């Protein structure tokens, strides 16, 4: 029977998810939701998760010694190397299995979590290396579009116009100028990889993709749009809603790339303007106060439209044509 949210809820009423309540993340943060959905799916499918975490909000908030929120094996090494670390763990597993030192029937899931800073920026090299080497691991990016552990600085994922402390909106410079880096395309370019986008606002799509990623015979990458309620300046109960809006406005299309084959997994019957997504967030407040705000929003609309069209074209062009 396929997994559903209801089924997961039933399974985990009397069972540990792997991360407990009592961590010190902000109320309403989407990151723990992302982590929980990944862990629940993995455990429900019979995997023993081993977690690697990059330095960031979730890592510092969940392991304040002498406490830990983790009841599954967990390792934090440094900021930029979670992919390399988990590739070492996965390799150790293969070595020890070969040597007959671990029970052969155990089904492990080697899962790395990283924020956008630890993935798009400083950790990109280690991520690329680990994917290229083909480690059987699942890398989950929780993308809040800023460096939150150090207090809302720009990252390679921050969208243009968002106000951050290292690319602030000033009298001369209108905040971050550059577009968001397309991490899924970068990862998909490694060819033998499963890469997909998810959001906590679309849980069934999320669970299905985690299942597929875990069963993929090689490296898998999941990018989860993960609102930071502090930096995005939205109410504590809005993280999930806003990710739905991100999908409906084409800001965060839900799709997957399975060895080069694109598939858009959510095609809303009608779309909302991207301005809806921008206007409800405080981080774009200063952008919206500019005299040229309308023009910037128009450009952004054109950009997301073009990307959506491109995505559909990729889907059509790559249908039944996996690279390997």
């Amino acid at each position, binding site marked *: 029977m396929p997994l559903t949210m209801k089924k997961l809820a039933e399974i985990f009423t009397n069972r540990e998810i792997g991360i407990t309540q009592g961590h010190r993340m902000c109320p309403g943060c989407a990151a723990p939701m992302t982590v929980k959905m990944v862990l629940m799916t993995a455990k429900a499918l019979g995997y023993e998760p*081993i977690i690697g975490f990059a330095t960031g909000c979730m890592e510092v908030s969940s392991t304040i010694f002498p406490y830990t929120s983790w009841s599954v094996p967990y390792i934090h090494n440094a900021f930029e190397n979670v992919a390399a670390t988990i590739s070492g763990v996965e390799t150790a597993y293969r070595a020890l299995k070969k040597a007959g030192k671990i029970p052969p029937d155990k089904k492990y899931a080697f899962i790395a979590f990283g924020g956008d800073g630890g993935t798009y920026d400083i950790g990109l090299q280690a991520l690329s290396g680990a994917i290229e080497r083909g480690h059987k691991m699942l890398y989950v990016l929780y993308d809040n579009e800023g460096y939150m552990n150090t207090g809302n600085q720009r990252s390679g994922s921050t969208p243009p116009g968002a106000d951050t402390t290292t690319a602030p909106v000033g009298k001369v410079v209108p905040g971050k100028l550059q577009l968001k880096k397309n991490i899924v395309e970068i990862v998909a370019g490694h060819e033998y990889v499963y890469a997909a986008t998810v959001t906590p606002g679309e849980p069934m799509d999320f669970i299905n993709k985690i299942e597929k990623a875990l069963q993929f015979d090689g490296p898998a990458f999941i990018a989860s749009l993960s609102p930071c309620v502090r930096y995005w300046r939205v109410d504590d109960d809005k993280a999930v809603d806003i990710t739905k809006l991100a999908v409906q406005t084409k800001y965060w299309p839900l799709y997957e790339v399975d060895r080069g084959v694109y598939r858009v997994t959510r095609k809303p019957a009608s779309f909302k303007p991207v301005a809806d997504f921008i206007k409800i967030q405080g981080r774009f407040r200063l952008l919206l106060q500019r005299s040229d705000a309308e023009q910037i929003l128009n450009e952004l609309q054109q950009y997301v439209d073009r990307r959506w069209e491109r995505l559909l074209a990729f889907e059509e062009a790559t249908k039944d044509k996996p690279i390997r």
Partner: protein
Amino acid sequence: MASKKVLAITGAEAAAYAMKQIEPDVVAAYPITPQTPIVEYFAKYVADGEVRTEMIPVESEHSAMSAVVGAAAAGARAMTATSAQGLALMHEIVYIAASMRLPIVMGVVNRALSAPINIHCDHSDAMSERDSGWIQLFCEDVQEVYDLTILAVKLAEHEDVRLPVMVNQDGFILSHGVEPVEVLPDEVVKKFVGSYKPIYPLLDTDHPVTYGALDLYDYYFEHKRQQIEAMKNVYRIFPLVAEEFYKISGRRYNYVEPYKMENAEFVIVALGSSNGTIKDVVDELRSEGKKVGLLKIWMFRPFPKAEIQRYLTARKAVVVLDRAASFGAEAPLYEAVKSALYEVAVRPLMGSFVYGLGGRDLKPEHVRYAFERAMALDLVADREEYLGLRE
């Protein structure tokens, strides 16, 4: 004792050969001159099925150290090797490996740090990791590279130690120089290192642990104290491991090797391959009736202070040769030796000579000059001097 087999091999091959016999579970490595042949030899062993080791051909040294940390935490015996810029790139994770108490063994083929770029030997790379919490061993010759690589595994994994070990060999001088090496039979090495018993492995999902927690001012200091104590335990454990190694090999190791130190009044202290040259000069001077000796340092971290004090107290003059500089301070080995001698009853006159940076040769006449200065009591403790430098 095992039957003897002698191979004519380089330091790099000796390190790789020892690694092959140890047969760790995981090796992650990235090439850099002059360490490259270690990775190459080992990759060939893997390709030929001579070891069951899983090798991770990572995309950088930073990832090499990150991956061996992951592998060791998972419960594997893990090794790597590097040089200079590679070690510098690892730096952040070198500390993490020691602080997580992971018994990783790493071959370091000593090479000068940039800039300017230079591929030849000095100890600036090793010295930059002096305070990282790794045990640091230095080799005089290729035999020692082989022996100490094997010995390091047992030392690192001892339950009272559980610290990573760097086995340093001089770039090119040892790594690319062919010497006869007496190797042990595979089974003897396997038996000596035994099978690895990990503590708190990540793969034991029935007993989940958290590695790398956030440790604020309420606990960090106590954890560092534990690490300091673990390092002190090495003073107790190293002789036991060295004795066991002696039993299988007939070769004795210690923190330091005193060479012609009986009644020596003038002593040189040094690390690494230059000890060979110094020994020759000591022999020459001894044949001329001069009371000279050498104190070779095998273990630089933890620093063998008690041995330094015991061997050097009441000598007339001590010259320390450093193959690394410390900008704005005294050279690292000199500083450590001088500091140890502050406490002895009768302090010798001291002199500091820096030599061999970027692979510059240390010639017998340089060593002879240093001894002559010592014998003339023409040394100033506060003046750093240079051997083989054009001024």
